[in-house]
């Protein structure tokens, strides 16, 4: 905040200004999340070269695990994670549950991509934003006292997104064998429901003051544990090891996909924190558009298909984006935010978390007298260890034998980094990642 504003403006004006700034920050984080989450799904296209979906998902989760421990250690230090857990230890269970949901959903998406393709599966599982709105409204007072125009913006946007998803489902029905199309649609919609439910623990954590960087650290145990159980029970330990050995030349690319996903997810966590799940999740689901761009421009999906399929996919995607736009323009007002605070008080009472801590963290600040987080030797060791693992697998990697278009891939990557720099700086300047 500008020093003058804190000395000259009355507290109420400062509160309103801070609140608006955090809302904008949530919206910006949502768009950055969309770009990064969309890019992260591209490596799953490697399923086309014959690796088991379970193995792909497991390797991605290992990359996610490494990123979820090294990035928070690099940004704030693990001392801040320990401090958060001491204040709200119950959130560890919520984070583990969310991680399990993520692992199952991610595995379903890989089956969906295999059966109906990335550009069609993506919008279907992005129906999770509708559930985000539902859970936000039912459980966390979101959209309460929001006013008719804003509520219509969010609900109308959700309806338009439904129409878009339906159009894309119709397009998918003419693709591939009928049995696989059905499986693919079920897998994509199932992933959407799982991810929709995952936002309940997200919102729970942020209403109780947990830092997104702390939450994702424990989340990673849930997802790696669940993914390991799924892989071993599905393939058996011996065959799984053999598949991992045979996939060693592409392990780096899949782990990189997991790493990119974590960056998107961290932005999504900040979007859920500052804009709420009813708005933050649909915004981050603009990853559908990015997935479409990667699928069509880089991987040549839909190449050679008839023009009506193109029209259905593009029309459906545009409808979904229109819905996202309507939701983005319906940010929460002061009255609605009062209801959010009531939900936060309910949570802090239920779980015995200090109210002043919850209030400070909801406002993106540190508590008065709170020790500032710092990095220690352990943090640097974590960063070095994670980097070393990536370097080792990068040395084994070779470029998959697939038809890729490198020029659009370079352009999309440049846009990703632009989002990272702009949104990262905005988060740092406004909240210091609190």
């Amino acid at each position, binding site marked *: 905040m500008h020093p003058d504003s804190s000395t000259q403006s009355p507290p109420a004006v400062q509160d309103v200004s801070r609140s608006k700034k955090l809302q904008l920050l949530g919206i910006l984080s949502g768009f950055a999340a969309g770009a990064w989450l969309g890019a992260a799904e591209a490596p799953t296209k490697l399923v086309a070269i014959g690796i088991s979906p379970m193995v792909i998902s497991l390797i991605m989760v290992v990359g996610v695990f490494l990123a979820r421990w090294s990035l928070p250690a690099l940004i704030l230090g693990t001392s801040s994670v320990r401090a958060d857990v001491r204040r709200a230890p119950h959130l560890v269970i919520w984070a583990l*549950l969310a991680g399990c949901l993520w692992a199952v959903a991610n595995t379903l998406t890989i089956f969906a991509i295999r059966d109906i393709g990335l550009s069609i599966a993506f919008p279907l599982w992005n129906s999770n934003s509708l559930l985000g709105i539902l859970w936000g409204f039912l459980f966390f007072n979101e959209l309460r006292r929001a006013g008719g125009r804003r509520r219509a913006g969010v609900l109308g946007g959700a309806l338009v997104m439904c129409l878009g998803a339906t159009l894309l489902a119709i397009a998918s029905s003419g693709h591939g064998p009928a049995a696989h199309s059905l499986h693919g649609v079920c897998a994509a919609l199932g992933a959407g429901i799982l991810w929709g439910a995952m936002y309940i623990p997200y919102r729970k954590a942020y209403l109780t003051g947990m830092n997104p960087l702390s939450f994702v650290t424990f989340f990673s145990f849930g997802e790696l544990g669940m993914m390991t159980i799924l892989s071993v029970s599905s393939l058996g330990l011996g065959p799984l090891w053999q598949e991992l050995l045979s996939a060693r030349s592409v392990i780096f690319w899949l782990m990189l996909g997991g790493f990119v996903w974590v960056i998107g997810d961290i932005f999504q966590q900040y979007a859920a924190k500052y804009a709420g799940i009813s708005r933050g999740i649909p915004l981050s689901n603009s990853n559908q558009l990015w997935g479409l761009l990667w699928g069509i421009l880089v991987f040549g999906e839909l190449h050679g298909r008839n023009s009506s399929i193109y029209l259905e996919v593009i029309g459906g995607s545009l409808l979904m984006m229109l819905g996202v736009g309507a939701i983005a323009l319906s940010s929460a007002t002061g009255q609605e935010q009062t209801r959010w605070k009531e939900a936060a008080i309910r949570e802090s009472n239920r779980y015995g978390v200090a109210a002043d801590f919850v209030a400070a963290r909801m406002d993106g600040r540190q508590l008065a007298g709170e020790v500032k987080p710092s990095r220690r030797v352990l943090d640097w060791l974590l960063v070095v260890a994670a980097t070393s693992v990536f370097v080792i697998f990068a040395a084994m990697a070779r470029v998959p034998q697939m038809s890729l278009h490198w020029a659009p891939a370079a352009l999309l990557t440049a846009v990703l980094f632009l989002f990272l720099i702009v949104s990262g700086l905005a988060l740092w300047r406004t909240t210091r990642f609190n």
Partner: protein
Amino acid sequence: MQPNTTRLASILTDIHFWVPVAVLLGGLLLLRFIR
């Protein structure tokens, strides 16, 4: 701060907890069906 038993009871009696648990079980069944 609450003792561990009270905290666990708070989680288990929270409806918000059981919705994601039920969805997770449904997701595992769906995965089994698709495989």
